[in-house]
């Protein structure tokens, strides 16, 4: 092979991926950014005016929904860690030869449409549904008790929908731990809880970190769960963006909100990575 071709090879290899990113990522982003700075209406059309005030107005008008979304996202992520860790732990250390089966079972519900699955949760959580109905008729809960329409319902839905995205990365991290390393801890006078705290948990952290990234971002910007399981008091920013864009045809506001959300999430994720010392975490992950 000629020298020039060898020099060119890496660029040729990146070409398809680069084109793809340009076409489906960079161009839409630039278009959206431009859109957020335009003014006008759907009838007479929009024109670029560099109107940054749209951002200020959007954030002021919808700050409640924005903050609520971040809180829902954070709570969902924390609940997910608590729920997913034991599941991943059990499959990784006690799954034996059936590990693939258990992982498949975990993913099975996700072969059904996202929206349909969320709607089925309505039936579970509804006032006289299969969860509350028996509890109410048994007199354990008062007749007026309800879950549907509350933040509990929305967060439950979010946790349910994002569960595999937390279980899988934690599972992968736990699965990679050499059982002899855990035995070494036991040999060096660590009782089982100490071995967990000093060895298993630190080695599982990269998985938790990846899980948080994969769940916090989409959970915060989700618009289905609140629409299906919530009420007007649980409106999330994703719903606002959706209705601004599709119902009100207020493209600049919808775009401005999208960019604001993206900026907030990026700052949040970087702050989180910095606080956790991602570099160390990534080193362990790359071992």
């Amino acid at each position, binding site marked *: 092979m000629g020298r020039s071709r060898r020099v060119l090879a890496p660029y040729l290899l990146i070409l398809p991926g680069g084109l793809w990113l340009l076409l489906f990522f960079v161009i839409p982003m630039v278009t959206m950014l431009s859109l957020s700075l335009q003014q006008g209406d759907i009838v007479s059309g929009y024109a670029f005016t560099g109107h940054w005030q749209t951002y200020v107005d959007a954030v002021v008008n919808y700050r409640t929904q924005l903050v609520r979304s971040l809180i829902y996202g954070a709570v969902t992520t924390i609940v997910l860690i608590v729920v997913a860790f034991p599941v991943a732990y059990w499959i990784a250390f006690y799954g034996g030869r059936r590990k693939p089966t258990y992982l498949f079972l975990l993913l099975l519900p996700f072969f059904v449409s996202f929206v349909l699955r969320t709607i089925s949760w309505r039936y579970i959580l509804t006032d006289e549904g299969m969860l509350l109905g028996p509890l109410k008729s048994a007199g354990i809960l008062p007749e007026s008790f309800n879950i549907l329409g509350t933040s509990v319902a929305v967060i439950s839905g979010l946790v349910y929908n994002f569960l595999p995205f937390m279980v899988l990365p934690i599972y992968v991290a736990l699965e990679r731990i050499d059982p002899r*390393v855990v035995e070494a801890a036991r040999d060096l006078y660590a009782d089982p809880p100490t071995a967990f705290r000093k060895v298993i948990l630190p080695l599982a952290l990269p998985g938790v970190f990846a899980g948080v990234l994969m769940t916090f971002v989409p959970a915060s910007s989700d618009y289905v769960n609140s629409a299906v399981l919530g009420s007007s008091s649980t409106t999330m920013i994703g719903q606002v963006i959706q209705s601004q864009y599709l119902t009100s045809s207020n493209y600049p506001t919808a775009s401005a909100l999208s960019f604001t959300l993206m900026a907030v999430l990026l700052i949040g994720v970087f702050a989180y990575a910095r606080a956790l010392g991602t570099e160390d975490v990534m080193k362990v992950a790359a071992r």
Partner: protein
Amino acid sequence: MTTGVDQDPGHPAIELAGVHKDYLSHGETVQAVRRMDLSIAQGEFFSLLGPSGCGKTTTMRMIAGFEEPTGGTVFLDGRDVTRVSPNKRDVNMVFQSYALFPHLTAYQNVAFGLERKKVDKAEIRRRAGEIMEIVSLTGMEKRAPREMSGGQQQRVALARALVNRPRALLLDEPLGALDLKLRQQMQVELKRIQREVGITFVYVTHDQGEALTMSDRIAVMEAGRIDQLGTPREIYERPATRFVAGFIGTSNLLDGTVESVSGDVAVLSYGEGERVLVPVSAATGVGDALEVSVRPEKIDLAQDAPTGAGLSVLSGVVTEVVYHGTSTNYTVKTSAGPDLVIFDQNAYSAEDLAGPGDRVYLSWSPQHSYPIGV
């Protein structure tokens, strides 16, 4: 340097009494270790030697506490620890692939055990520094395991266990992952360290050379049992079973029938002028079948018939000559049975004693014939 382990001479460091271990594998019971009795003295370098699957690792794991015996009792320093969990046993293990904590530095790895024992910080620093000097790791304290070579990781694993001054150190094929040169270096070093710290070492290996050079005593294991227990010299010179004879070094095995017995030497005859002389016990009589082991380096090879009367003599045809540097190995087809292997030291002869196809005579003294049980 001594570590100040107060050893109670009254008890062996480790004792196994009728210990056995069954596994359930695919619905069938596999006997990994069968009714083993074993006593390892304080300060001894003891090796469990055998092929993979012979039960040596299972035996070690029962001493460490990672496996509970199906039956029998494990004693450490005279104390029954059969049902005691590993973190409460005063033995430490060096794992086959080191099993260092990847998220901790070399120093933190070494300090791990003492921290769990709540030893105070200054004392941990002192002892960790001391042991890291013994294993030549000074200056490596802040390295992560992945930044160290195999030999260095090996030393961290050793230091991590020794720093606790355990009653016994259990080593599970610790040199298996190292290349030959480093392995030989570490063998010498392990022996030196063991002398310095005076701790009982239990060494599991499938490498007979390793076991022979390092051990005070060796237990050769096969199929969950100890075939022979003795010093390296005993095991090499007087293998108790056909398995031991074949597993340790190279052995020539000869079958024969006793033709006559004079004093304590039996004569196996293989034809005109060909005989094997074997020292035997009084119980051996004419007509008994015997199996005899002869080590290759004990046999003399010559083109002419030997003159000595009190020698074993066989004749045959050379089929293969392989030059090995320090020795030349000959394979000779004899009428007595299987092909025999002879190692001839290249101390005096600059040329081969014989070439392929040559008719040769093999001879050796009676004490080098060793009758074995089957």
